[in-house]
C-alpha cells in the first residue's frame, strides 16, 4: 500500500518524535510513505494572517506537486492538513481564485486529489481490525483523552471530518489499542497556536486550562496529532495548579501497543517525561 506523503516543517524539528514514531508505525503496517518532491511550507498561521492569497498559494503549490502522482496525499500535521484543505476548497469552489492560484503556481488543478490525515490512513486504508492484529502490548488501564484541537475538525465545510464538536476518530484508535478513551469537554478547544511566541502568558493559561481539564477527567495522558498542539500542551503547561500531563502523539501510543523498537529516543524528546507513567503501566 502506498500513499503520497507531505511531512511539513515540524517533521524534522519540533515534531521529530512524531516523525520517528510515524515512520516506524507505518513501516510495520506496510504502508509506504512516498514523500512529495521538493515540498514547501504550507504557510501555517502566518501566511493567511498577512495575506489571504499567500495563505492559499503556498499550499496550492504542494497540491500541484502531489497531483503528479496518482496516490492519495497523506498529511501528519493538522496545521498543514488544514492549509492544504483550504487551498483545495478554494480551487474547487471559487473559479476566480482557482484561476489566480493556477496562474501564480503555474499548474492546472485536476480536481481529483484525495487529501487524508494520517489517522484516515489508519482507519480507512489499514482498518482497525488489521491494526488490532498488530497489537502486542495492549494499553490496558491507560486512560487517554484525545485532543483534536482546531485544525483537524474546523472549518467543518472545508475539512469534512464529521462531528466537529465531539469527534471520535482518535478515540477509536485508542480503543483499538486497548486503552481507555475518556470523554471530556476540551477535545476541540484551541491550544493557543503561535501565540506562545508573542504572548507567553496567554499560551500558558490556555495550556493549563486544557491539561487541567484532562486531569479532572482523570486522564493519565493526552493524545494529539499536531506538532503545535503537542508543543503547546507538553511544554507550556506550568504545573502550578495541577500535576503535569504527558502528551503523546497518536503514533507513539500505536508504537507502544505494537511494541516497536527505538521508543526510548521518542521519550527523550518530550518535555514532560512520560517514562514514569509508562513504567507504572508496564508499557515502557
Amino acid at each position: 500500500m502506498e500513499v503520497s506523503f507531505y511531512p511539513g516543517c515540524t517533521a524534522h524539528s519540533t515534531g521529530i518524535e512524531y516523525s520517528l514514531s510515524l515512520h516506524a508505525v507505518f513501516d510495520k503496517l506496510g504502508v509506504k510513505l512516498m514523500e512529495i518532491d521538493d515540498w514547501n511550507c504550507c504557510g501555517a498561521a502566518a501566511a493567511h494572517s498577512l495575506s489571504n492569497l499567500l495563505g492559499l498559494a503556498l499550499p496550492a503549490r504542494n497540491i500541484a506537486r502531489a497531483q503528479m502522482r496518482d496516490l492519495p496525499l497523506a498529511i501528519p500535521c493538522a496545521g498543514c492538513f488544514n492549509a492544504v484543505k483550504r487551498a483545495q476548497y478554494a480551487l474547487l469552489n471559487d473559479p476566480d481564485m482557482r484561476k489566480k492560484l493556477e496562474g501564480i503556481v503555474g499548474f492546472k488543478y485536476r480536481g481529483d486529489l484525495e487529501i487524508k490525515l494520517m489517522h484516515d490512513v489508519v482507519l480507512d486504508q489499514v482498518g482497525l481490525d488489521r491494526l488490532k492484529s498488530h497489537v502486542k502490548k495492549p494499553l490496558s488501564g491507560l486512560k487517554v483523552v484525545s485532543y483534536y484541537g482546531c485544525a483537524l475538525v474546523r472549518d467543518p465545510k472545508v475539512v469534512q471530518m464529521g462531528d466537529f464538536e465531539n469527534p471520535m476518530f482518535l478515540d477509536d484508535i485508542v480503543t483499538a489499542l486497548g486503552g481507555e478513551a475518556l470523554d471530556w469537554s476540551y477535545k476541540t478547544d484551541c491550544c493557543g497556536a503561535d501565540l506562545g511566541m508573542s504572548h507567553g502568558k496567554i499560551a500558558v493559561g490556555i495550556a493549563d486550562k486544557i491539561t487541567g481539564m484532562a486531569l479532572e477527567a482523570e486522564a493519565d495522558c493526552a493524545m494529539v496529532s499536531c506538532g503545535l498542539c503537542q508543543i503547546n500542551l507538553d511544554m507550556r503547561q506550568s504545573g502550578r495548579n495541577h500535576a503535569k500531563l504527558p502528551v503523546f502523539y497518536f503514533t507513539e501510543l500505536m508504537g507502544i501497543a505494537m511494541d516497536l523498537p527505538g521508543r526510548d529516543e521518542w521519550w527523550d524528546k518530550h518535555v514532560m517525561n512520560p517514562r514514569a507513567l509508562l513504567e507504572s503501566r508496564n508499557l515502557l
Partner: protein
Amino acid sequence: MKRDRSFIKEVRERSGQNIEACYQCLKCFVGCPLSSYMEFKPNALIRMIQYGEREKVLKSHAIWLCVSCMTCGARCPNEVDMSAVMDTLRELSIEEGCAYEAERNVVQLHEEFMRSIKMWGRLHEATFFVAYMIRTLDLFSPMPSGLTLMAKGKIPFIPKQMEGIEEIRKLYEKAYKTKGQLEREE
C-alpha cells in the same frame, strides 16, 4: 467618532461574508478561546463593522489575538465565517499602516515567519526565533521555550534550503500583496 459607511461593504466583499446576518447571539464570543483577552469581542467587532467604526476595528488588539481556531465560524447560526472576516481585517489593517500600533509583536512574528519561508522554502526555527527577538526586543516570551526546545535537540542549527526556492520567491512576488511592509522594515 467618524463613521465610514463603506466599511461594511468593503469587508463583505473581501471576506465573502454576510456581515448583516449577525443577530448577536454571542456564540462566537462564548466559544472564542481568546475573547477574555480581547478588548472587543468577535460579536462586538461585527457590530462595529456594521456601524462603520473603521479606525477602532483596524487598530484593535483583538484582530491580532485571534489565532483562527475557527470555533466562531463553525458555530455561527447564520454562517458568518468570522475567521475569514478576521483575515480581511488583518489585511486591511496592514494595508492602512496601523497593524503595528496595536500588536507589533504578533505582526512581526508573522512577518518573520514568512521571511523564513521566503529564505528557505521551509521554516527554520533557529533563525526565525533569533530574527523575531532582535526585531521586537521581546526576549521574555520566546526565550524559555526556545531554550527548552534546543535542549531537547528539536531545533536544527543548519538550515536546509529547498531546491525550488526561486519558485517560492516568484510565488511571493505574485501572491504576497503586503510585501511592501516587509521591505520597508529592511
